[in-house]
């Protein structure tokens, strides 16, 4: 079948006596949505940060399209983050520039990959505001005036405008009201399918993982305790921890 976009093997990282990553391996293929689920402190966000080069592991290897991510100079990693990768933070304030207009937040990413024509950038920003269901009339407002859900949608537009191949998402619906979460999840689902993105999403929301992910990894105490096809892991969980996780969800 296809070769993986990203591959990691034997990842180890300790914080003092705590193993945040304990011999973790993961593959992500083009167009594949992979969810990492697990409780707080299971190591899932650490894994995301290591894979995206934000944090160095004590041991292990990470490759992206054949390139060694850990050996990559910082400038090359930053270039990847501007072009082929995207990172959606849990708190949109970490992914947006709050003093810059909504249109500017989107246009800035385009300019970072070489776009120069003002009219084209503005047209593309308008298009992306519509795609994330923000009224283009808000183009010149600063994101500080937006609701939390709007800020998160703006962050997603900013990340996706450069058509990355691989997007890392850290609890993208984490801080939002339930009614806002559903809209955002549906939006992410549609955009990911339309653009054929590979996504690695960290979440503790099992329903979100079921909706979005093709494959699931369950983490506990720094280890991947179970992985596989999303519906098989959730409907026929094998590991005691996965059984606990799945049975703890209240059906609405």
């Amino acid at each position, binding site marked *: *079948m296809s070769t993986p976009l990203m591959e990691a093997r034997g990842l180890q990282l300790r914080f003092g006596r705590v193993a945040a990553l304990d011999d973790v391996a993961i593959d992500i293929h083009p167009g*594949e949505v992979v969810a990492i689920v697990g409780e707080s402190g299971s190591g899932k966000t650490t894994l995301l940060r290591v894979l995206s080069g934000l944090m160095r592991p004590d041991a292990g290897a990470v490759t992206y399209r054949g390139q060694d991510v850990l050996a990559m100079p910082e400038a090359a990693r930053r270039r990847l983050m501007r072009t082929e990768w995207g990172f959606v933070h849990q708190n949109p304030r970490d992914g947006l520039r709050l003093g810059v207009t909504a249109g500017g937040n989107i246009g800035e990413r385009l300019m970072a990959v070489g776009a120069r024509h003002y009219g084209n950038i503005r047209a593309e920003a308008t298009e992306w505001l519509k795609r994330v269901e923000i009224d283009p009339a808000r183009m010149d407002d600063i994101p500080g005036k937006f609701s939390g859900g709007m800020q998160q949608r703006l962050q997603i537009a900013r990340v996706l405008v450069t058509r990355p191949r691989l997007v890392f998402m850290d609890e993208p619906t984490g801080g939002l009201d339930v009614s806002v979460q559903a809209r955002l999840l549906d939006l992410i689902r549609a955009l990911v399918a339309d653009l054929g993105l590979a996504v690695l999403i960290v979440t503790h929301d099992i329903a979100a993982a079921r909706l979005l992910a093709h494959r699931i990894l369950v983490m506990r105490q720094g280890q991947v305790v179970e992985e*596989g*096809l999303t519906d*098989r892991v959730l409907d026929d969980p094998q590991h005691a921890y996965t*059984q606990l996780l799945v049975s703890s969800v209240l059906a609405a």
Partner: protein
Amino acid sequence: MGNWALRAENLSKDFRLHLQGGVRIPVLADVSLTVEPGECVALAGPSGAGKSTLMRCLYGNYGAGAGRILIRHGDAVVDLATADPRLVRAIRRDTLGYVSQFLRVIPRIGAVDIVAEPLMARGVARDAATARARDLLLRLNLPERLHNLPPATFSGGEQQRINLARGFAADYPVLLLDEPTASLDAANRQVVIGLIEEAKARGAALIGIFHDTEVRDRIADRLFDVAPIQDAA
């Protein structure tokens, strides 16, 4: 022999409940079942015998404990029990369909898009996929004014008809049907019988659970007994 569409060999399945002290519940033992193209096999057996578990194993939704589930996928024969998740997704897109009893609704997605989605996943253009979806929904007597609405608030029977339209939209070579007529009235049961007969005529292999004996007698070519495990032992 040799022309089968799906062949389960010595399939076993038990559930280990870690939260209940690790108790092990055996459900399927040594089940072997072969289905030919154009054939409809009805699973028979008392409630709790494991018919739905067998269906879920055949779809790859439950992992197989032991045995093989061979399926003809394009020009290849694949063991669904050991296939990589990406291959299982490809099999479900192109070869293997499943109509469950209940529709899993997604916020904000309209009925017609739910039905069209399996076709669009295969690369069918939106217009063509949507047209096919509307035809099927109308055939199943779901009025046009409901087509664009998300079915969360629809009745059980309406949701089941959307599920059926979705299952029959993509002409799968192998189709699993779990109680497809459970909440339907007589008129819609006849529509489903028609859809199943057409699927058989184009060479689809079907496996179904039908508590409705009238429907079963009309469309099943043979019964396959799923015996509770203590009787089989």
